C-alpha cells in the first residue's frame, strides 16, 4: 500500500518541525514544517466541520501563497481531493470548473468571495477558519465556503483533479489518485535525489501539473519550496535575481519561462552557485536557446521531462554535455520512467520499429480518468488484448536508434502555449459566442522566436470593420491569458471543404 500524498510531509514535520518548509519571497514570509502541519490540521478540522470527508472534492481558489499550500494539504488530510482553480483567469471559468466538479467546499481568499458569489448565482455559506488570523499573517486571508452536497467520487483514493483545455469548449477534469501521483513522485526521488538542503522553485501555478513535483517532492524530503507568485513568474527582471537571492538548487518550469529569462532577464549578472538541476517540461525547447542557457548556467544537470497532465511525467531525457553548435533538432522526450511502459501505434495498429505513430502510455503514473466524462475517457484509452489500459497521448513520435522517443507533432488540434495545453477548438467556441462573429476558425503558426503564434480568422457581421481590440477583450473576459489569439484576420467568409467544413489547409495558405 503506497503512502498518501501528505504522509511523507507529516513524517518530516514530526521529525524536523523547525526546518523551513516554504518561503514566500514576495510577501516576505516563511513557514516551518511544524507550523505548516499544524495549520493544515487546523484547516482540515474546519473542512471536516463543514462535512468534507473521503470521496469529496474541495476547490482551492486563492493566489499562490503559504496558506494555499496549507489548504491543499488540509484537503488531502480529510481524505478529500483538491481542485485548484486559476484565480487569475476569468471568474466565470472558475465557477464552471467548481460546479462541474461538484465541490462540497471551496477554500477561497476573502477578496475573491464576492466575485465568486455573484458568478455562482447561488448562496454560498461563508465560514471562518479557526486558524484564519494565522493564515492572514502569512499573507492570504482564507475563508471557507460550503457548497451543496454532491455525489461522492466514484474513484477511491482520488487526490486531485486538474482541469485542462477541452476541444469542445468545456474544460475537462483529469483525475489523479494518491497512487498515480506517488508513482511519479517516487521516481522523482530516485532520479533527482533531493536532500533537505535543496531549495525547489515553485514556478507553476497549482492548477498546472508541473506543481505536483514542486510541492510534493520537497515536502516529502524536508527540502524548502520557494513560492513564485503569478505576477513575478511572468516577469524575467524579477525572476533572475530571485533565483540567485533565494539560492534555488532545483529549477522546474516550462521552456517558455527559461527563454524569457535568457532573452530579457540578464541572467549572466546573477550568481547561482546553488543551482544543480534544471528541469523543463510542457513543450519543445529549441536547442539554440537551450545552448544559450547552458552557457550562462554551465555544469548543471538538464532534464527534459515529458508527459501530458493525464500521465504525470512518463518519459524523460537528460541532456548531457555541451550542445553542438550545429544542432537544430530538439532533444528527444526520452525513455519511459520506471513506472511506465510506452507503445507506438498508427491508427491503433503496431508500427515497424523506428517508424512514426501515436505514443501510448501504460503504467502507474497514468490518470484514473476524466471527471464525469465517460465518452472522453473511453476515447482516451486503448485497451489491449491483455486488458491493459493505455493512455493515448495524441502526440506523434518515433523511436530513434538509442531507444529514445522523439516528439514530431500532434494528431489533433491541441497546441502547447507557454507550456499550457490549448485546444484551438475551445478558442473558436468562445469566439462564436460574440454577437458579431458569424464564423470563426483558429490556427497556430510558428513565430519568429520558435514559439507558436495563434491566429484567428473571423467573419464579422457587426457594423463597420471587425476590431481586434474588441475581440481580444472579449476573449480576455472568458479565457485565461495564454489562450487569447495573438492576431485576428477578418474575412468575408471562411474557406470550406467539399463537405462544407472549415478548410484549415487553405486558411494556412492565406496566412503565408
Amino acid at each position, binding site marked *: 500500500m503506497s503512502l498518501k500524498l501528505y504522509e511523507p510531509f507529516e513524517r518530516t514535520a514530526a521529525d524536523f518541525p523547525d526546518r523551513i518548509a516554504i518561503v514566500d519571497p514576495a510577501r516576505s514570509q516563511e513557514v516551518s514544517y511544524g507550523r505548516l502541519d499544524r495549520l493544515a490540521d487546523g484547516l482540515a478540522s474546519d473542512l471536516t466541520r463543514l462535512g468534507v470527508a473521503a470521496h469529496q472534492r474541495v476547490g482551492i481558489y486563492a493566489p499562490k501563497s503559504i496558506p494555499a499550500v496549507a489548504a491543499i494539504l488540509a484537503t488531502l488530510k480529510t481524505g478529500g481531493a483538491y481542485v485548484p482553480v486559476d484565480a487569475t483567469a476569468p471568474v466565470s471559468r472558475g465557477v464552471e470548473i467548481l460546479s462541474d466538479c461538484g465541490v462540497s467546499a471551496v477554500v477561497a481568499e476573502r477578496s475573491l468571495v464576492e466575485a465568486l458569489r455573484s458568478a455562482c448565482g447561488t448562496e454560498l455559506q461563508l465560514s471562518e477558519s479557526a486558524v484564519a488570523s494565522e493564515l492572514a499573517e502569512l499573507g492570504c486571508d482564507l475563508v471557507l465556503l460550503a457548497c451543496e452536497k454532491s455525489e461522492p467520487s466514484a474513484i477511491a483514493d482520488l487526490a486531485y483533479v486538474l482541469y485542462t483545455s477541452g476541444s469542445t469548449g468545456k474544460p475537462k477534469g483529469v483525475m489523479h489518485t494518491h497512487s498515480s501521483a506517488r508513482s511519479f513522485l517516487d521516481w522523482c526521488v530516485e532520479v533527482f535525489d533531493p536532500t533537505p538542503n535543496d531549495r525547489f522553485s515553485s514556478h507553476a501555478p497549482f492548477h498546472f501539473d508541473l506543481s505536483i513535483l514542486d510541492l510534493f517532492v520537497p515536502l516529502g524530503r524536508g527540502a524548502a519550496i520557494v513560492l513564485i507568485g503569478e505576477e513575478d513568474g*511572468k516577469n524575467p527582471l524579477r525572476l533572475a535575481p530571485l533565483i540567485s537571492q533565494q539560492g534555488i538548487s532545483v529549477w522546474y518550469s516550462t521552456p517558455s519561462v527559461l527563454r*524569457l529569462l535568457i532573452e530579457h532577464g540578464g541572467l549572466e549578472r546573477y550568481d547561482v552557485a546553488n543551482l544543480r538541476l534544471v528541469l523543463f517540461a510542457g513543450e519543445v525547447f529549441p536547442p539554440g536557446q537551450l545552448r544559450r542557457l547552458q552557457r550562462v548556467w554551465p555544469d548543471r544537470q538538464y532534464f527534459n521531462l515529458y508527459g501530458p497532465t493525464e500521465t504525470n511525467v512518463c518519459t524523460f531525457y537528460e541532456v548531457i554535455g555541451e550542445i553542438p553548435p550545429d544542432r537544430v533538432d530538439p532533444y528527444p522526450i526520452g525513455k519511459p520512467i520506471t513506472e511506465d511502459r510506452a507503445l507506438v501505434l498508427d491508427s491503433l495498429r503496431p508500427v515497424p520499429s523506428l517508424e512514426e505513430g501515436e505514443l501510448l502510455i501504460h503504467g502507474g503514473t497514468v490518470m484514473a480518468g476524466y471527471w464525469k466524462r465517460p465518452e472522453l475517457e473511453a476515447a482516451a484509452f486503448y485497451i489491449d488484448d491483455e486488458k491493459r489500459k493505455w493512455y493515448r497521448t495524441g502526440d506523434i513520435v518515433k523511436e530513434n536508434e538509442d531507444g529514445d522517443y522523439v516528439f514530431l507533432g500532434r494528431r489533433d488540434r491541441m497546441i502547447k502555449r507557454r507550456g499550457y495545453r490549448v485546444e484551438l477548438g475551445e478558442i473558436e467556441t468562445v469566439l462564436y459566442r460574440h454577437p458579431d462573429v458569424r464564423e470563426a476558425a483558429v490556427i497556430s503558426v510558428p513565430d519568429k522566436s520558435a514559439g507558436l503564434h495563434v491566429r484567428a480568422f473571423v467573419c464579422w457581421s457587426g457594423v463597420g470593420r471587425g476590431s481586434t*481590440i474588441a475581440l481580444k477583450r472579449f476573449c*480576455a473576459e472568458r479565457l485565461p491569458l495564454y489562450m487569447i489569439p495573438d492576431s*485576428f484576420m477578418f474575412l468575408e467568409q471562411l474557406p470550406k471543404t467539399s463537405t462544407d467544413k472549415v478548410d484549415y489547409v487553405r486558411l494556412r495558405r492565406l496566412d503565408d
Partner: protein
Amino acid sequence: MSDLPGNQAAIRKAAREYILTEFLPGEDPSALTDSTPLITGGILDSIASVKLVSFLEERFGVRFEAHEVSVDYLDTLDGIVGTVERKLK
C-alpha cells in the same frame, strides 16, 4: 529635460505606433484609445510587456524597475506615458 508637453506627445506617439504595429496588426488605429485596457484587455501578454518596455527604454533612454513591468504601470497608454514621463523628469 525641457519641453514636457512635447515629451508627452512624443512618448504617446511612439508607444501607440509600437503597440499597433507589433501587437495589433491590421487594427483601425483609431480603435486604440488612451484608455484602452492593454494587459487586462488581452492585448499585451507577459512577453509583449517586456518587449514594449525594452523598446521604451531604448527609445527614451530610461530604465524600468522590475516591479514596473506590470499591470499597474502599463495597462493603458495614459499609464505608459505617465510612467515614462516621470522617469524623464
